[in-house]
């Protein structure tokens, strides 16, 4: 936290892939990279919501002195003199495996296929359980509904490998105002097909919902 030691410095100087960059206090590594047009892939990151760190595609390798570590760039602020590598071997290893596993977990998503192909991953060794699946449970919709819209119509159900994106108690939720924010932030378009399972059949709505 050298920037705190030295109140005069308003920027944090570090490097990404050898290129010297400057971050404003409060920026994360990812934000600095985007500001400098350095590409780091992400799925769960969205500027409108708090970084959540679930997709782990944005991992970068950071080296500071002798210490090196692989970190998600969306959650970590840079420190002075940090060296960041966005395409080193451990980073690519994580990305390739996550993408290969996603090809099996969300086989219907064209976005994932396209992203995977960029990293040379075109086939998967893992069995496909649901060929129609598009949702990768990144949590963007849950976060936007709670943080931005403020209604919490969406939530995660179950845990672990069975984790699902659903409405509380798995019934159409009257809290849903049908704003479509969840659809617009969804990285794979999975919610396009599912909005009606969230808000329900509008003609049959009961109770004190929002204006519908």
């Amino acid at each position: 936290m050298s920037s705190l030691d030295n109140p005069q410095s308003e920027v944090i100087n570090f490097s990404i892939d050898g290129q010297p960059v400057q971050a404003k206090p409060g920026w994360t590594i990812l934000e600095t990279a985007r500001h400098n047009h350095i590409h780091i892939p992400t799925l769960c990151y969205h500027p409108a919501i708090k970084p959540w760190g679930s997709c782990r595609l944005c991992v970068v390798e950071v080296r500071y002195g002798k210490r090196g570590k692989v970190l998600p760039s969306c959650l970590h602020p840079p420190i002075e003199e940090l060296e960041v590598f966005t395409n080193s071997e451990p980073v690519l290893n994580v990305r390739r495996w996550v993408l290969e596993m996603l090809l099996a977990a969300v086989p219907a998503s064209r976005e994932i296929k396209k992203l995977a192909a960029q990293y040379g991953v075109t086939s998967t060794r893992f069995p496909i359980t649901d060929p129609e699946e598009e949702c990768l449970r990144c949590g963007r919709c849950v976060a936007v509904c709670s943080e931005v819209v403020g209604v919490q119509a969406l939530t995660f159900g179950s845990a672990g490998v069975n984790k699902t994106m659903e409405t509380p108690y798995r019934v159409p939720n009257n809290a849903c105002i049908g704003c479509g924010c969840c659809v617009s932030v969804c990285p794979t378009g999975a919610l396009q097909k599912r909005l009606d399972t969230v808000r329900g059949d509008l003609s049959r709505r009961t109770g004190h919902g929002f204006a519908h």
Partner: protein
Amino acid sequence: MNRLTNAAELQALKDHLVQTQDPNRPIVRVCRGPGCLALGADKVSQAFQAAITSQGLGVKVQPLIKETGCHGFCSQGTMVNVAPANLCYVRVKPEDVEEIIQTTLLKGGVLERLLYHDNGTRYKSEAEIPFYRLQKKVILKNVGVIDPSDIHDAIMAGAYQSFAKALTTMSPDEVIHTVGISGLRGRGGGGFPTGFKWQKAVESVRENPGPLYIIANGEEGDPGAFMDRAIMEGDPHAVIEGMALGAYAMGAHLGFLYVRHEYPIAIRHLTTALQQARALGLLGKNILGTGFDFDIQISRGAGAYVCGEETAIIASLEGRIGEPVTRPPYPSEQGLWNRPTIINNVETWANVRHIIDRGAQWYADLGVAHSTGTKIFSLVGKVKNTGLVEVPMGISLGTLVEEIGGGVPGQEHFKAVQTGGPSGGIVPYEFRDIPPEALKPESVGLQARESIPEKKELTVDFDSMAQTGSIMGGGGMIVMDDHDCVVDVARYFLRFLEEDSCGKCLPCRLGLKGMLEFLNNFSQGKGAPEDIDALESLGRALVDGSLCGLGRSAPNPVLTSIRYFRDEYLAHIVDHKCPAGVCRDLITYRIAPDICNGCTLCAQTCPQVCITGEENKPHTIDQDACIRCGACVDVCPVNAVVVD
């Protein structure tokens, strides 16, 4: 109970209790640890109580029956210790109670039949038994000795003396400093220096004034581990006093005991202990008249393994879904309700009072440099003496397993030890005690490519364990013999972790499932040798990519087993054989005709009814119908069923 208003009253209470105790009064301590309870310790203690109350015995001094915490020697349960002679009776059944009363309590004799014996030697007291002789009991000193539901018993054994000492003679900073220089490191597995963490929290509070919380982590979810359980059940005051000392040092006024719901006895004993401590004025407002306020609440976990991770505990306490969040900010900066929070393992807290009582130097001298003090291990698996052991840090793995544990029954030596629970690694026998030059891959057939410990033998401390690719972890030690298949063991732990992953981040949620997929294939003889490298690379992706410690350490059993037992993986994939005879799809059961005596037991037991043969003549197994359940192996009285 009268409220104590100053430290002198606590001392007076202790002196009074010790003086009024008759040193010659017989005390029967019945172990009620998990192992002994399963073997019927309840009935044994009831039988003692009933016999003593009904018979009147006709003696001047009535014996005292104490139900204590774990005595440690779980393979010999139910354990009964009879003071003042300190006789140690093992494998006591309710029917033996009458004889113990007649022989030992009334006549003062020794009941030879119930003494522990090994290789023809009978051992009278615990101190003589090799299992106990090499141990160093510090934290477990009172576990198995005191009655955990009676605070007076604990006070007689010295409980709350360190707390009173710190409150009256030490400043909070001195307490932190003492814990710091003692070298105490977190016992939950991470091994972070405790004093340093406390210092951090205090600094955070100074920058940002407000409350600070402390939490004891009693969410011990590892299979085969019961260290924290033994402390909480057997000496709950050790945890409470440790937390009170920490609270005083850091200026906390509220603490939480996060205990897993699966430990009802621990919760009951802790609740009782808290009530009694409050009644005595050792918790609550104005403790011992010093003006210091502190109280503890118990919070029960709901059975999620991941809630042993500190940020997940905080989420759980706040009422959110028990999922970890990224650190930093560390809980010592921003934890429970965004306030600095110190989370230490139950065992770490239990260490604190000994450090304050006997000094940092004494504590540091117990272990080795960088890993000080003692550590409790639960020694389980294929080892003769299973149980709970406390040893100084830095003891060699060989001493722990072969001398304290008594080695593997029926085999020359163990094959490997899984240390640190499901997130730990598998350490092979070769690391037991041979010099490093012999540890070259070619000489012992090891595939160790990276760091080989540069010391004479593998010692059990934080840094040495990390060098092997394993971790110290909470202290689970699962010993494996030649009948354990490393692929199967790795698969077992991975399945456990896959079930208990919270599912937040993709590497852990999808990766554990993917790794399990590989291992399932291997155990069925499918796959190619390249798949081992793929599995290793996927494991490294999890280590690098996962969000919390669960995912980051989950591949350890797989990575270490590949590193040290690649041959065994290859045997599964290339030769389609399971050398240990465990993986069902790769083995066949055969009845050796020259050994089989034709007793028909196997034919009667076989669920598939696929064993045929006439009485008194060798039987045969129909391989097509056999489901390899192993029932015939278990019932065969002459070991005629062989695994190919």
